[in-house]
């Protein structure tokens, strides 16, 4: 479906936009965040196509960002450098780089003269300050360019006065404005002159895509040098005076709480320890070093309340999901039906940087530093928890060490605030790694059932019922949806929030007759498990189940998987990525027994992805030995072809696809949390089998196709679904058995001895010098 350009409130003509030069001593150019693309604002939603074809999750996120009508501003300093405080969070997805490129493009400035920082919580932006659903670039694309274009216009006008002559005669390039006679001024010289005493409304035109010199060309991340020299500062690297290391001793059961500390006095006198106190999530200890916090956590003797899932195991949750699943509508009709039921286990959403935050809560005021994707909600909820007004809580956003949806929540910031209040001293609070998979946010377990009917060589029906453990959306998105419900397309307002998100994000891109895909959460309480929309919400699991079934349908109709998909696909965008992947990946080449190719597609976020992999399931590969590691089938080659709409930074898009592949592959093969008796067994990276070098394909290639789209799409999550599905499809083709439980190694004997639950964290070894190389 094409985007229908609509006339937003500040939009004058197709390429003309209105913004402001803000009155003040320096040049500040501003634009309305409501300039976000508005593809579906006025589009009626017919009942036959699925909702996301016309109005998807990103339209919803952009829509929610519109009515707040707030300004984002670019400042040009006396050196001619541009500064922009991005109301979003950088967690590795490359948005600071992409936004720097957009500003550099419209301002005719070198990218390294653009400085993008992360804005602290700005309550007036409401929903506009949430980094999720891969929506950042989509919603910032227009406003950022407008503000930059306004700054350039103001600089040119100032230069015209300084140099004499008219704006039309001047040329701006690389931060310098030149006149035909060869005289020139730098942006820095023009900037002071360009500042206005009062705010003025300005109309500008944006550059055409064909005029772009920076946007669309690969650009290295703006923080790459800091990252490789160790200078990049994460929350735990900040030097906040007196904020001493703090860790939390947690209950043996999931979400258990502390009743009493039996040896508080003893622990308080341990070396380095300064404070010990009960907080809502356990017992916090503050010490001179984190090592001494670990020792203190291990020494604590605590009476615990039981947790929220006490005796339940994965098989009980599976039974619960199956029992509560919405029934299929089309009856099973003998040989004409193709059916499958797929179980997706819990998996930890933890990044490599553990949950952490710095907090200083003293004398009725609080200051927080953390990697937060929804800082406004964090500010409100932390204020409420501390009994303060939101205006007394300052929330600073720090670059995060990965997020994958988890940092939509602010668990560590809230804990740090509680601990700092209890101690009356600033804290630098960090989770021990062992707590991350055990007590941190997980991707919800789900059971997906699919039934399709085939008659006379055609697919007549395709039904999918996805029953899931409830996903926690209480990070601001939910509240906003409730507020916006009346304005949403027909049919959405009566659904629960999760059902709406599912409907907005899930799209079956095939002409399979009657298609229904429904989500339900048999137990909707979100406080039983700690969940979040971990990269990403539903699509990897939904796509894996449906693409495996598509392969089954092709087999039943005796067609090649690629030819079958091509025949039934609705969208040319998807056909194009599929064809390209098949061509580049030499689809159908002959492979030895025990190895196979697999291919899968996915359509979401206004783009499409096709992934082709080759898998080796031969015993000599599966059983290869790596110390304390999970090996198993190996993906030897992976190819991702993506159409993500207008591309700002191809290098960044490829990086995101590589990361998405890494997630999708391990979710299919090795990565999960085992729930046994109310406890997750995994407790660190030696237990959680996330992708490692010994699982990495020898060859990885990503092609970002020239897009027909005129707006950028989301890339942070787009690569996961088709990757996971392609790996599952390849495994089925190599082994002749369709996997129905993910990861496929879930029922194999554990590759580790579970670590103790009391003490809740392991001791640090002392034999590190025996492993040098």
């Amino acid at each position: 479906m094409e985007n229908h350009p609509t006339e937003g409130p500040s939009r004058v003509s197709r390429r003309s936009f209105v913004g402001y030069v803000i009155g003040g001593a320096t040049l500040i150019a501003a634009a309305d965040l409501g300039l976000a693309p508005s593809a579906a604002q006025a589009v009626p939603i017919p009942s036959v196509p699925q909702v996301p074809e016309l109005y998807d999750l990103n339209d919803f996120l952009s829509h929610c960002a519109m009515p707040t009508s707030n300004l984002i501003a670019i400042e040009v300093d006396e050196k001619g450098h541009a500064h922009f405080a991005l109301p979003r969070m950088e967690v590795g997805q490359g948005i600071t780089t992409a936004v720097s490129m957009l500003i550099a493009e419209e301002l005719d400035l070198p990218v390294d003269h653009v400085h993008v920082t992360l804005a602290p919580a700005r309550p007036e932006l409401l929903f506009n300050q949430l980094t999720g659903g891969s929506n950042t670039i989509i919603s910032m694309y227009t406003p950022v360019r407008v503000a930059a274009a306004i700054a350039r216009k103001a600089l040119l006008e100032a230069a015209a006065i300084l140099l004499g002559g008219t704006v039309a005669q001047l040329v701006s390039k690389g931060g310098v404005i030149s006149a035909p006679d060869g005289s020139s001024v730098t942006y820095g010289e023009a900037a002071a002159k360009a500042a206005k005493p009062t705010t003025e409304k300005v109309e500008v035109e944006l550059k055409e895509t064909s005029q772009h010199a920076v946007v669309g060309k690969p650009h290295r991340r703006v923080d790459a040098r800091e990252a490789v020299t160790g200078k990049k500062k994460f929350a735990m690297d900040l030097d906040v005076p007196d904020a001493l290391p703090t860790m939390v001793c947690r209950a043996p059961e999931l979400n258990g709480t502390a009743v009493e500390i039996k040896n508080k006095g003893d622990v308080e006198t341990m070396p380095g320890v300064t404070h010990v106190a009960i907080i809502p999530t356990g017992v916090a200890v503050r010490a001179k070093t984190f090592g001494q916090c670990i020792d203190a956590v291990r020494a604590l003797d605590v009476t615990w309340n039981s947790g929220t899932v006490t005796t339940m195991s994965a098989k009980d949750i599976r039974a619960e999901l199956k029992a509560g699943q919405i029934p299929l509508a089309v009856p099973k009709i003998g040989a004409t039906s193709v059916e499958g039921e797929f179980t997706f286990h819990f998996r930890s959403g933890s990044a490599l940087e553990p949950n952490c935050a710095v907090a200083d809560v003293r004398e009725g005021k609080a200051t927080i530093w953390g990697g937060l994707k929804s800082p406004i909600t964090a500010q409100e909820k932390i204020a409420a928890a501390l009994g303060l007004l939101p205006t007394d809580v300052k929330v600073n956003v720090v670059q995060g060490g990965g997020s994958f949806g988890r940092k939509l929540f602010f668990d560590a910031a809230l804990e740090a605030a509680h601990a700092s209040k209890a101690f009356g001293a600033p804290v630098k609070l960090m989770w021990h790694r062992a707590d991350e998979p055990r007590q941190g946010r997980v991707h919800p377990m789900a059971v997906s059932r699919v039934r399709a009917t085939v008659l006379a060589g055609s697919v007549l029906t395709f039904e999918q019922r996805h029953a899931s453990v409830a996903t926690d959306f209480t990070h601001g998105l939910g509240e906003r949806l409730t507020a916006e419900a009346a304005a949403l397309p027909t049919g959405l307002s009566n659904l629960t929030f999760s059902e709406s998100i599912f409907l907005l994000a899930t799209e079956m891109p095939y002409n399979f007759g009657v298609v229904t895909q429904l989500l339900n959460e048999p137990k909707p309480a979100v406080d039983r498990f700690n969940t979040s929309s971990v990269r990403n919400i539903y699509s990897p699991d939904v796509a894996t189940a449906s693409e495996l079934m598509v392969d089954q349908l092709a087999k039943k109709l005796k067609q090649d998987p690629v030819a079958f998909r091509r025949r039934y696909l609705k969208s040319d965008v998807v056909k194009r990525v599929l064809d390209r992947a098949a061509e580049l990946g030499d689809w159908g080449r002959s492979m030895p027994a025990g190895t196979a190719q697999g291919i899968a597609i996915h359509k979401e976020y206004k783009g499409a992805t096709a992934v082709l992999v080759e898998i080796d399931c031969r015993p000599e590969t599966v059983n290869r030995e790596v110390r304390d590691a999970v090996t198993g089938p190996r993906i030897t080659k992976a190819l991702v072809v993506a159409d993500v709409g207008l591309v700002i930074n191809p290098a960044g898009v490829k990086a995101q696809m590589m990361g998405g592949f890494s997630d999708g592959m391990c979710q299919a093969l090795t990565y999960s949390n085992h729930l046994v008796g109310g406890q997750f067994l995994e407790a660190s990276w030696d237990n959680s089998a996330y992708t490692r070098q010994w699982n990495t394909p020898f060859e990885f290639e990503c092609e970002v196709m020239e897009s027909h789209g005129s707006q950028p799409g989301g890339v942070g999550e787009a690569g996961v679904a088709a990757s996971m599905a392609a790996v599952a499809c390849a495994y089925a083709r190599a082994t002749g058995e369709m996997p129905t439980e993910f990861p496929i190694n879930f029922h194999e004997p554990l590759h580790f001895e579970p670590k103790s639950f009391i003490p809740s964290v392991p001791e640090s070894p002392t034999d590190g010098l025996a492993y040098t190389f």
Partner: protein
Amino acid sequence: MPSHTFQLNGETVTVDVEDDVRILWVLRDVLGVTGPKYGCGINVCKACTSHINGKAFNPCSVKVADIDADDEITTIEGLADTAPGDGLHPMQEAWLEHDVAQCGYCQPGQIMTAVALVNKVRKEGRAITEADLDTIRNVCRCGTYSRIREAIKTGQDAMARGL
């Protein structure tokens, strides 16, 4: 309080800290050297990888008391100074060339591992193989593994040319 002296990034440092505190916390919490990252504290994620006397080691799993006054510890902050010239270490340059880092949290450890691995195979008189790359244990939760493999090969060539 016991006092401990060792060589850090080319300088002699002395710290007053209990014997059993692991070097990672001496670096980060006492000395404010934050390049080495915490990712597990049990020698499995390798985010803290640094060098001791030119070899890779994991400071989260070594007590400060086990280090001698003449032991040379190099963190990512000091890596560039171990290579000829004023610029970055060739492995850091290779990381930039391949635009490896995403969030960047694992990358100091990845680079320190890469340099040690290249030096190790060079001492064995050979070049890095796919099997060598498979032995790298550093976790990258952003999934930059493929670019890491490419960057190590580039870095190895530059190191061999003495850059």
